[in-house]
């Protein structure tokens, strides 16, 4: 984090409107925003910590606790809902023994739900890190998870 921040200030400048890109930069690096980052950024951008905390908690993208190596995002969009997204979420939960926003044993996977991944013609879908998997069935999910 201490190496990451100066580069982010360099790219975006120490301005209030750079707050979100800076937070995104930290999260891209660490997959979450450590508590101590808030006070450091507050000092640098001359903002209140509470305001930064307010921004972090407003947007679903930001996390305040560490996550597993891979992030699974199960799509809950309309087409996926109609195509059986509920089963996908349940199947992943059952296979990894975790619920939404939890991390599996061995710190391998974190399960999240997202509103829509925009691959509606291929419903139901999920994303692991930056890769989208389509036309999911229970068997397929099992195979995919075994790849990791």
């Amino acid at each position, binding site marked *: 984090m201490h190496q990451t921040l100066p580069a982010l200030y360099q790219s975006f400048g120490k*301005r*209030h*409107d*750079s*707050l*979100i*890109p800076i*937070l*995104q930069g930290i999260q891209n690096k660490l997959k979450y925003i450590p508590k101590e980052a808030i006070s450091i950024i507050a000092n640098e951008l001359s903002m209140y910590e509470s305001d930064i905390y*307010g*921004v972090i908690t*407003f*947007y*679903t*993208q*930001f996390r305040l606790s560490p996550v597993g190596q891979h992030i699974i995002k199960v799509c*809950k*969009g*309309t*087409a996926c*809902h*109609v*195509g059986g997204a509920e*089963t996908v979420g*349940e199947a992943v939960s059952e296979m990894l023994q975790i619920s939404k926003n939890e991390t599996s044993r061995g710190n391998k996977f974190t399960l999240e739900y*997202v*509103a*829509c*991944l*925009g*691959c*509606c*013609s*291929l*419903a139901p*879908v999920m994303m692991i890190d*930056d*890769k*989208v*998997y*389509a036309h999911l069935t229970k068997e397929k999910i099992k195979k995919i998870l075994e790849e990791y």
Partner: protein
Amino acid sequence: MGNREIVVLMGTCGKSAGADRVYDKFASALKAKSIAGVELKQSGCAGLCYSEVNVRTFRDGKEYLYAQITEDDVEKFIDSEIIENKTYMEKILFEADPVDDTALFPKQKRIVLRNCGKITPTSVDDYIAKDGYKAILKALTMPPEKVVQEIKDSGLRGRGGAGFPTGLKWELTRKNPAPEGRYFICNADEGDPGAFMDRSVLEGDPHSVIEGMLIGAYAIGANHGYIYVRAEYPLAVKHCLKAIEDAKARGFLGENIMGSGFSFDLKTKEGAGAFVCGEETALIASIEGKRGMPSLRPPYPAEKGVFGKSTVINNVETLANIPWIILNGGSKYSETGYEKSRGTKVFALAGKIKKGGLVEVPMGTTLREVIYDIGGGMAEPEYKFKAVQLGGPSGGCIPERLLDLPVDYESLVKTGAIMGSGGMVIMDERSCMVDLARYFLNFTQNESCGKCTFCRLGTKRMLEILERICKGQGTMDDLTLLQEIAKKCSTSSLCALGGSAPNPVLTTLKYFYDEYVEHIVNKRCPAKYCKKLLTYTINDKCIGCTACARKCPVKAISGEKKTRHFIDQQKCIKCGACVATCKFNAIDTE
């Protein structure tokens, strides 16, 4: 063997269908066969998502489009197409005239999607070869008022959903004095579940959006701009950044563009996952680094927008139309359309439809034509069509009897739905309308920013009522209460999120009232979807494998090994675990 091209269509949807692997296989196979003179290219999504992975090639002045290509097809494809110069019959989808794509896309008119799937999105030269950046050069020779007039003549209206005339928006902004300069923003925060046209345009043809922004910025006199794009679309973000970099290198962006004296500086901002940020005042707050809360209008962004400066915000699809309009003329654009809605609209077809994907049709095409003639009808024809959901969480469900409606802003508003961003989700008789209303309320409840009481609490109360009805605990009084809260929610919310959140409830009540009554009075779900209203019984397909009995969390299933099992209805909690476990279709639900 002349110079041949093999183009793999690689949007996010193509990639998730395996386009990356197909592309790599083509590269290695061409190398292994030491075939020279074949250029392997990547392109975006052509909208034929149902048939991905798509591959395109050209031979003897004709274009050949292939569907569902897998790694196993690659060798055979090369042998047939490249070595023998013959069509690879096994996977051919269409052969067409490359200039005229009406054969490929009957009943469609492609303006927004004109280059999607045809050009390499990361190549500025490809875009320029398709008359790219000609429109901005033409616009720079016109007085800005004339550019605005051209857009006004076209009759183009905002494609983000509200349908405000684009030319008028630009004109009103110009009229506001802006001594401190103006901003021009592209709203690419496509948050509606079920819509993906903006994603495909940004992934497949990012330069057309940038060019549209340039023209708009010149017309209103803005020197700074942002593309506010969803972080959930990593490929779109990547292609936008690359396109901005290339446009700068060629002198289309930056200081003194093409020696005209006009400068425009463009940056991207990634949204951080808040649906409400698609609302313009919330989007502005987000760009300024704040919580994305909507604010009261007036003042409108035209007067006080980003950093308090005069701002125009247009959606991706709206902007992709602009270069075409400037090149071909506003009056040419307005030749297409229906009544007050001119031009074309892109729809994202998804759900239980045969040919899901993107379609671009002239305004006024009927829903039936879009669903049946273009979309090929139901994916599983044995199940009857029930409803089409338009416009995402702000829209509504339209039943079969209204399918002959022309698609335009006004006709759709009359039904209680809205055009919205153009998501169309088709449902058959297995979808429960009460559950669907519950699904959308769950979404809006999660996404409500909490500023307005009726949106924050009204959506919560409506959601609770719908959850009760889905569990068979609803009463007829609940329906009156639902309508009352819905009305208050839509009239007492600051922004469109709360204003339109009740639409899915009101339209399902209007067109599928019987389904609500079934849930409440007879405790039945006609679609057999609501688990808590089903009765589970075991039929004689049961071979006594005991899998369901072992899975049942309340030990409600009993029976000897290798004999038919039984479910104790008193103990059954209707969780559906037995159905998910049974491999023999031995469990009936009623």
